[in-house]
């Protein structure tokens, strides 16, 4: 068994429209990979398909989480196997406070027979909020309702810190964050970094990768990985854009 998030030949369609074709990517546990690529190329589709979104039909391939194929499982089952997704556009849920929401999520993950400790929970919650420099008053606000773009992203990371996943997919968590927030959120992510977690960070900006230094950078175009490199690849993209990548690709596939 390989300790990794191992995506093999994944094909995903939305309705009749194929978005991902034979997509392959391995994120070993303990590594942080970045995924970049032009708008509309299928990055969010990949994230949602992995998490089991019912609208994203997996028409082929497998996804192994530490050796176990999760294709076809319910989203909550996949989540409990340790896969966490920070949403590009998190949903708002009226009337459900952050504290109650995360609490329900923590409780849902408790192993059978284990008892939930409210004091332990709040201690952890407040500690993580302090880390993310979130005001305590946030706990009683309805989840994402009326949050600014940056607040939503911070709240996603708070959930990640609380739920302690083995693999995290962060979909453009940096968009909408101001400079300070970017640093704070990155610090949060870096604190979780270690041999017990693998992460796939989807971003458009090399700037984030100054804070969260990736082990690898993948570039995606047309529903596939077209290039893989190290951190310097992101710098190169920043300088040259995506065109230099897609031209040879089209030449190859033509």
């Amino acid at each position, binding site marked *: 068994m390989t300790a990794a998030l191992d995506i093999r030949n994944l094909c995903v369609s939305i309705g009749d429209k194929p978005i991902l074709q034979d997509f392959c990517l391995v994120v070993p546990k303990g590594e942080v990979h970045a995924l970049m690529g032009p708008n509309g190329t299928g990055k969010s589709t990949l994230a949602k398909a992995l998490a089991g979104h019912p609208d994203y039909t997996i028409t082929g391939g497998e996804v192994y989480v530490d050796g176990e194929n999760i294709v076809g499982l*319910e989203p*909550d089952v996949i989540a409990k196997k340790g896969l966490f997704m920070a949403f590009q556009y998190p*949903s708002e849920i*009226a009337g459900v406070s952050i504290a109650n*929401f995360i609490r329900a*999520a923590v409780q*849902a993950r408790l192993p059978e027979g284990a008892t939930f400790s409210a004091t332990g929970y709040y201690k952890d919650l407040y500690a993580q909020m302090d880390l993310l420099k979130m005001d305590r008053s946030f706990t009683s606000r309805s989840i994402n309702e009326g949050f600014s773009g940056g607040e939503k992203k911070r709240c996603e990371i708070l959930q990640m810190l609380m739920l302690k996943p083995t693999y995290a997919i962060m979909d453009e968590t940096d968009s909408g964050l101001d400079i300070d927030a970017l640093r704070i959120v990155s610090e949060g992510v870096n604190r979780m970094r270690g041999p017990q977690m693998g992460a796939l960070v989807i971003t458009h900006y090399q700037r984030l990768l100054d804070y969260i230094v990736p082990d690898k950078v993948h570039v995606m175009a047309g529903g596939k990985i077209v290039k893989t490199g190290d951190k310097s690849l992101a710098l190169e993209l920043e300088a040259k854009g995506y065109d230099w990548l897609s031209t040879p690709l089209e030449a190859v596939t033509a």
Partner: protein
Amino acid sequence: MVADTANTLPIENEPTPSIPEAGSQEAAINIDRDKGNFFYNTTYAYDAGVGLSEATVHYITDVKKEDEWIRNFRLKALDVFHSKPMPTHWASKDLENIDFSKIRYYLSQGQKPSRTWEEVPDDIKRTFERLGIPEQERKFLAGVEAQFDSEAAYSKMKDSLSKEGVIFVGSTEGLMEHADIFRPYFGKIIPTGDNKFSALNSAVFSGGSFIYIPKGVKVKQPLQAYFRINAENFGQFERTLIIADEGAEVTYMEGCTAPKFETSTLHSAVVELVALKGAKIQYITVQNWSDNVFNLVTKRGLAEEEAEIKWIDCNIGSRLTMKYPGVILKGRKARGEVLSIALANNGQHQDTGAKMIHMADETTSNIISKSISIGKGRATYRGLVHIPKHLKGCKNNTECDALLINTDSRTDTYPAIDVRGAANQVQHEASVSKVSADQIFYMQQRGLSETEAMSLSVNGFVNDLTRQFPMEYSVELKRLIDLQMEGSVG
């Protein structure tokens, strides 16, 4: 003595269907995770049989040894009931499926309500223990009445309250032993002919609570009644009248459950409230009927000067509920409020609303209604706010919010707001929202099951209302919502 009497009374109707065999005595039948869905076999000493006729009314009156005026009141009501058509020109056609000739109108074991749980017959006691009533009583109630089919099996109030002159009895005892207090208001807030079902109740009513709170007495803990339907084909027709004298305050909570039977069951209560000058009545309903119950209830209060009546009405379960609690704001500065939650699951129709009749200057009313429709469940809101032209300084606020889960849910809103005169203020807001697939996915991604995700959205939707409810009640409500959601996902 009890068992014999049954035969001496006129029973012209068919004999009752036989009660299930002993042997299954120990095991409750039909248990599932739904708390109210079970029943123990019970033998009834008094049974008015199946079907409704004058004989049924005579039977009930005789069993109860009522005064003649009550007999006549009932007989007259029966005529009114027969003369009124089903209100299907505006209400659900499903009403036509009620077969009045197949219902049993009175069932009891013939005992007086016990003052201690030890004295309550075993089968009945087991039922209420399972529903947690004695426990709640110990924890936070000032008095409890537990009705089993037609009559109360248990009735007890704290001694301190009796000393202050508080009366908390059943309808028969109220009308017979405290006629001077109750008779002047009985059937006055809701006249017999108000609607077909108030007429039916007036003909065959039994049980319910008659409560009087003397001048200035403020009852701190709630009084509670629990209405339990145990028998199949049975109709429960409790009658409640609460009078809070000048400056008095009381909170009354009612809970109800019935087991799931194949055939339909009818629950048709009449509840009248009278809040005299400066009095406050809060009436809370926790309804958790199984989905074979037709729940057709008339509830109205009369608020005198500076008095306040608040209905907190949560309708969960039942096949069809029709209920529009109202307040007649008769005195200057009277306040009326209806806070209601209706949850319509598959196969259920919640047709609920509120009525506010302003009859004096500076009266204010507030209606907040939240409905949740799931799957094929249907929620209808009907409101009536009436402020005549000659009044000044009246205010009404109406908010109706609907939450839809699954696309084929249906919700209708009929807010009739009839406000004349520029010297009055009305505010009306309505919203319809949906729990989207993306919201459910978002919650599932955090590890919640689909059911838990839906429960959480529903609880979130009603949260700003439930926060205003007494604690014990909010907890119970959340539990009931969770139970409903469990049943709604495949």
